[in-house]
C-alpha cells in the first residue's frame, strides 16, 4: 500500500462552528470536500480526506482567517 492510498493517513475535517464566520476560503481551497450553504457557511461532504489531499487540506486549515477548520486523523475501518 503506497502513501497516497494508505487509509491510516486519511484525515477528517471538523469545523469549530463557534469560530467560523463564513469567509469561505476553505471551499475555494478544498472544493471536492467543502461547498458553501446558502448563507456562506461550509458544508462538509462527510468523507475523510484521502492521503493525497491531506497537504492541501492542511493549507486550507492554516489559511482559515479564524482557524475554524480542523483536521483530525480518521478512525481506521
Amino acid at each position, binding site marked *: 500500500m503506497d502513501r497516497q492510498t494508505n487509509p491510516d493517513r486519511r484525515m477528517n475535517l*471538523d*469545523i*469549530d*462552528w*463557534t*469560530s*467560523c*464566520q*463564513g469567509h469561505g476560503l476553505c471551499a475555494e481551497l478544498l472544493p471536492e470536500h467543502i461547498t458553501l*450553504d*446558502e*448563507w*456562506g*457557511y461550509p*458544508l462538509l461532504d462527510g468523507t475523510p480526506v484521502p492521503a493525497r489531499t491531506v497537504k492541501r487540506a492542511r493549507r486550507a486549515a492554516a489559511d482559515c482567517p479564524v482557524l475554524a477548520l480542523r483536521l483530525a486523523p480518521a478512525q481506521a475501518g
Partner: protein
Amino acid sequence: MTATFPDLYMSPRLLAPGAAPADLPTHHQRYGPLSHGDPEGVLRTVAESGLTGRGGAAFPTYRKLVSVAEAGRRSGRAPVVVANGAEGEPASRKDKTLLRLSPHLVLDGLQIAAHAVGAGEAYLGVEDGATWLESALAQRSGDPLPVTVVRLPKSFLSGQASALARYVSGGAALPAHPSPPVRERGVHRAPTLVQNVETLAHLALVARYGADWYRSAGTPAQPGSALCTVHVAGHEPRVTEAPYGLPLTRLLPLEDASAVLVGGYHGTWIPAREAAELTVDAGYLGAGVLAALPVGRCGLAETARVLRYLALQSAGQCGPCLNGLPRIATAFAALAAPGPQGTVRTDLARWSGLVEGRGACHHPDGTVRLVRSALTTFAAEADAHAHGHCTATDRTALLPVPQEA
C-alpha cells in the same frame, strides 16, 4: 406476551411527601445517614444500579463518573463537580421542585459524586432559589467538600454542559466546541463532571440503599424512576415521579388529546393514539416534559410559539443556527397562519437539513427534531391551513414560553 406494569403509586423516592420542604433533620429522619464508602465501591454500586442521567441524554452515570475520574488521574488535576440545576427548559419544573423540596438529597448526591471522582471543588448551578440552597448548605457541617452556589443567567442554553462550565469558570454562559469535552477540560480547565441535580438525588439513594433497591422500580432495561413535568390544559403543570415502563396514560389523560409533546422543546410531537401505546421510556423522555394538546387546539400554532422562543435562545455563535433558526421560526409562523403557504414546507425541510449537526451544541438538532415531528403529526392541520382554515376552536396557549409572559 404479558407485561407487568410497575405501580404508579410507588412510594415517591425523591420528592418530600406533602410538598413541604425537608430541612436537614427531616431529611435524615426520612432517608437515614449517608455513608460515603470507598470510591471504588461507590462506582461499582452505581454501575450495578444502571443509573442514567436525568438531564435529557440518559447517559450512563457510571461511565461518566469513571471517565472524569480517569481524566483526573491522567491529567494530574483534581476534577471539579458541578450539580446542574439550570433547567432552562421553560416547560420543565422538576429540578426546581426537587431543589425546593429535597435540597439535601441533591447535596448528598453531590458529595457522593465528588468523592467517587476525587473532586477538589464542587458547585451547584441554579437560576432560582440560590438563597434557599445556601441556607440548606449552611445546615450541613459534615460535608467533606464545600459547595459554592452559582446563580446562572436565565436562558435555554445555560445548562448546556460546556456553557455551564464556562460560566462557573468566570466566562460567558455560551456553549463551546465539543472538543476537548468538559469531562476532560471544563471548569478552570480541570476535568469536570456536570451532573443533573435529579441524577445526583438518585445517586444519593443508590449510595444509601444499593443497586437492588434502585432496580426494584422500573424495568430491567431501564431501572428506576424519573421526575416528569406533566402539562394538562387548564391545570398547573404537575411534577410527578414515574417508574420507567409505566404506561403513559397513567401519567396524563389522553381521551381528549390530539397529540402529546414528549421530551420538551427539543422533543417530539406524537399523535395521541400512538402516545396511548407508549410507556415511560428514557429513549424519548428527555428531561421528563410531557404535554397533552387537547382536541380543538392548533399544534402548529403551539409549535410556532415554541420555535420563535428557541430561535431567540440561539447563542448566535454558530452561523447555521444563527441564520437557520430565525428563518425556520418565521416559516413555521407562516405555516401556523391559515392561507397560501407557497414554498414554506420545502423551505422548512431544506433549512432543517442545513442546521442539523452544524453547531457547537445540540440546540439546532433539538429544534429540528421538534419541527419534523410537528410537520408529521400535524400534517393534516397544515393541509387545512393551506386551504385557508384552521380546525382549532380554542386559541388558549398550552405551552409556557417566557418572552410572551
